[in-house]
Each structure stands twice: as structure tokens, then as C-alpha cells.
């Protein structure tokens, strides 16, 4: 037992009553114990006090020292089960903030879906439906990859140009007055519109696969890369300059490509495999990287976007 309460003193200068319990349970140091013993030989009052404490000590041991049966061995198994379970709980606890944040983002995204201009959804669906009808009924589906590669990127990029900005979204000022960051608002809208157009593209591709029997992945590769790149470009230009600039720029790129491939004009030189222009129309890591860079720039820029036109 540790000794404590020494401080070189033995309680009161005359009596050592406060040390009696410690004296009885042998928790005094050897030196203290000796000093108390010496004092007891000469002090009848302290001997009486010791006797009183001895009575209390004996009675306490008799009364409270129940012959408790040893805890069952199942207790130890339960301890291990608890420790292992606690580890799993710890993992769950660490994931909880991430889940909570994901829940918030999910709710924000859901709210944004109602604020995005309805025309974006309708225009995309109508355009791609017309493409499908054209390919099926007018037999222009001889080159389904060209149709997909032309229209899915174009319609996605046009939609991206109008997802953010007071120019076409009167409710944006109200949205931005909430504690939700403009970046989260923008990201939510980008994800929603992009996912919507991408899903429509996949459905259209699947329909063509069923009709023509082409390889699904090959067809997707025709439009996926250009879609992400043009969408990123359109988004950045719409935020930094204006929505119409984004549409015009993407439209110009698309027109050059479309005219070149449809009429096999000399402009084909622009779209040769070696030219940088051709890279836009490919699905490659470089395309995706540039698209990601454009998205990052857009997200970084959005809080500084001028909200009111002079």
C-alpha cells in the first residue's frame, strides 16, 4: 500500500487519532507506524481511540466481507465480446460524420432539383428522343455513334450553361441567402444535370445496342469523353462570362465537328487524329482530366461570381 499523509508530521502534536484507521490497515510507512506505536505506549487516550477504531474495523470486515462467489467465467467472454463489439462501434462512430454530411448534401441536391430551370430537363429529354426517333425511322442510324457523339455532348453542355446564375434563375438569390455554400449549390446542380443527361445517353445507347447489336462500351466511348469536356467548358464560360457565351463556344466547336463529319469537307484536317481538336471528341484520360480541371476552376470561382448585372 502506498503511504501518504506523512509530511513528517503525525497528526496533532498531542494525539494521532486521524492516523488510527491507516495504522490499523497497515498503510502507514514503517517510520510512521513506528512513531504511532511509540505514541500509543504512552497515551491512554489514543489507545482508547485505537480500540474504538479496531472495533469499527472488525465490525466492518464482519459485516461487509460477504463470501462473494467468484464471478462466472462467462464474464470474461462477455468482456471480449464487448471489446470487439466496441471496435465495430468505433468504426461506425467514425463513419457517422461522413454519413451525416452525405445526408446533408443529399438533401441539398434534392432541394436543388426543384430549383433547376425545368427547360433543361425537358430540352435534354426531347432532343435525345428526337435523335432516337430519327435513328429508328429515318434510317440515319447507319452511323449511330456519330449521332450519339454529336447530340449527347451538345445537349449536356447547353444544359450546363444555364444551371447557375441570376440571369436565368430568379430564385438563386434566395438560395444563396441560406447557409448552404454556393459551391455546394453549384456542385449539386452539376451532378444532377450531368447525371440526368448521362443517364439519358446510356438509355439511348442501350436502345441502339438492342437495335443494331453494336458493342455498348464502344458506343458509350463515342460520347462520354466529349460530354464531360464540353460540359466543363460550358459551365466555366457560363459562370465567368455568360450562359450565352458558353452555349456559343460549345455550339461553334460542335458545328465544326458536325459539318466536317457530315459533309467530309476540307475542315476534316482540323479533326484529324493528330490535331488537338480531335482530342475533344475522344474519350480518354486526358479529356476527363481537363474536364475535372474545368469543374474545379468553376467551383473555385463561383463564390466570386458577380450576382447582379450592372
Amino acid at each position: 500500500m502506498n503511504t501518504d499523509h506523512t509530511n513528517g508530521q503525525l497528526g496533532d502534536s498531542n494525539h494521532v487519532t486521524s492516523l488510527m484507521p491507516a495504522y490499523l490497515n497497515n498503510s502507514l510507512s514503517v517510520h510512521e507506524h513506528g512513531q504511532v506505536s511509540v505514541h500509543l505506549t504512552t497515551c491512554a487516550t489514543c489507545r482508547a481511540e485505537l480500540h474504538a477504531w479496531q472495533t469499527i474495523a472488525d465490525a466492518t470486515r464482519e459485516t461487509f466481507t460477504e463470501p462473494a462467489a467468484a464471478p462466472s467465467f462467462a464474464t470474461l467472454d462477455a468482456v471480449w465480446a464487448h471489446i470487439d463489439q466496441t471496435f465495430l462501434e468505433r468504426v461506425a462512430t467514425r463513419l457517422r460524420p461522413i454519413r451525416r454530411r452525405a445526408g446533408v448534401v443529399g438533401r441539398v441536391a434534392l432541394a436543388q432539383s426543384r430549383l433547376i430551370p425545368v427547360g433543361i430537363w425537358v430540352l435534354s429529354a426531347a432532343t435525345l428522343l428526337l435523335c432516337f426517333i430519327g435513328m429508328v425511322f429515318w434510317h440515319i442510324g447507319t452511323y449511330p455513334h456519330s449521332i450519339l457523339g454529336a447530340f449527347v455532348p451538345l445537349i449536356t453542355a447547353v444544359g450546363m450553361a444555364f444551371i447557375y446564375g441570376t440571369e436565368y434563375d430568379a430564385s438563386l438569390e434566395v438560395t444563396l441567402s441560406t447557409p448552404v455554400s454556393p459551391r455546394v449549390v453549384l456542385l449539386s446542380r452539376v451532378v444532377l444535370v450531368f447525371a440526368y443527361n448521362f443517364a439519358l445517353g446510356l438509355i439511348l445507347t442501350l436502345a441502339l445496342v438492342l437495335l443494331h447489336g453494336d458493342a455498348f462500351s464502344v458506343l458509350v466511348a463515342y460520347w462520354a469523353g466529349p460530354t464531360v469536356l464540353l460540359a466543363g467548358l460550358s459551365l466555366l464560360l457560363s459562370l465567368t462570362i455568360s450562359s450565352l457565351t458558353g452555349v456559343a463556344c460549345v455550339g461553334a466547336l460542335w458545328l465544326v465537328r458536325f459539318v466536317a463529319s457530315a459533309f467530309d469537307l476540307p475542315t476534316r484536317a482540323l479533326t484529324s487524329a493528330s490535331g488537338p481538336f480531335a482530342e475533344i471528341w475522344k474519350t480518354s484520360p486526358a479529356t476527363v482530366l481537363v474536364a475535372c480541371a474545368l469543374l474545379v476552376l468553376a467551383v473555385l470561382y463561383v463564390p466570386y461570381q458577380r450576382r447582379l448585372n450592372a
Partner: protein
Amino acid sequence: MSQVEVWEAQAVADEPEDKDVTLLARIANGDRLALEHLYARVRLPVLQYLLHLTSDRRNAEELLQDTMVAIWKNARSFAGKSSVRAWIFGIARQRAFKRLRRREPVCLTLDAVESEPSGQPGPEAALLATVDRKELAHALEQLNPVHREVLLLTFVHQLSYKEIAEVMDVPIGTVKSRLNGAKRSLRQILCAGDEVRDEY
């Protein structure tokens, strides 16, 4: 003889505190066997203490489990300022109060009026010298839980004042004043008993 009982028998022969510290260091390093050794060493006294706090065997066993889990999780935080046993008793006590949703007993407020023991012998000595053992046992059971606990830690678990202070999370002076208060309360209970008997 089970493995735990073998360890328990070995534990008696070992130097208690050194062994406990070594085991705790091993537990801090994730040694499961060390926790089982420590369990074999402390399970009975800790269970007995918890039985006193809860008065219920099932609750006490569950709290013993909680205590062992807490030892496993917090072994690294043992700073060595007190004995391992006091540290474990302190954990058990905290768990018991948390589980039972018990606040510190009302008697705590008496600490303010329970002065430091003066060092002077009190009138309890004469009374206790003559009292019947059964009456004293009965009086002990009527004691305030805090007074009963401090007597239990001192005389049953043989803890020093410093260790008791650690377990109960109070200053050493409070431990002394609670011991003094326990003795005074016993006298009052015994005197009250005598008065009731005199009335009949």
C-alpha cells in the same frame, strides 16, 4: 482447476503492485492474455466493492465487465500516480454511479460541515468500547452510503488514504473527515438506539 484459477493462485504469490503495473503496461500494448491475468487478480475484490455499491449481484457482474472493458480501453492513460488497484476501483466506482444514475449521495454536502479530524479523541471511543457487536453491525448498515464506503475501502480493501482519495475523487483531507464523520454517525445511531430502548 481452470486457467483463471491457476492465475489467481499465482497472483497471491507475486508482488501485487509490481505485477499489476506490468500487466497494465502489457494491456496498454494490446496483450489480451495480460487482461485475463489482471482479471484473475482483481475480479473478487472489485466484485465485492461493486456488490456493496449496487447491492445486486447481476448488476455488480455487469459493472465488473464494464470495468474490465474500460481498463482495456484506458490502460494507456494510467499515469502511475496512484496504485493500479486504486485506479481500477475508481473506474468501477465511476461505472457504478453512471449505471445506477446515482448522483453523489446527499451526504456529500456534509463534507463542508465535517471538519478535519482534530486529532483529539472523541466521545465515540468510550461508547464503541462497550457496544455489542451485533448492534454495531446493525449501525454500520444504517450508515450513510459514503461513510459506509470509506470504511469499506479502508478496512476491507485495505487502501491507503491517498488511494481512497483517488477512488472517491476527493482530497485526502476529505477522506479523513469522512472517516471521522463515519465514526461520529455510528455513535449517533448507537445513541439513538439506546434512547429508543430506554423508552421501552
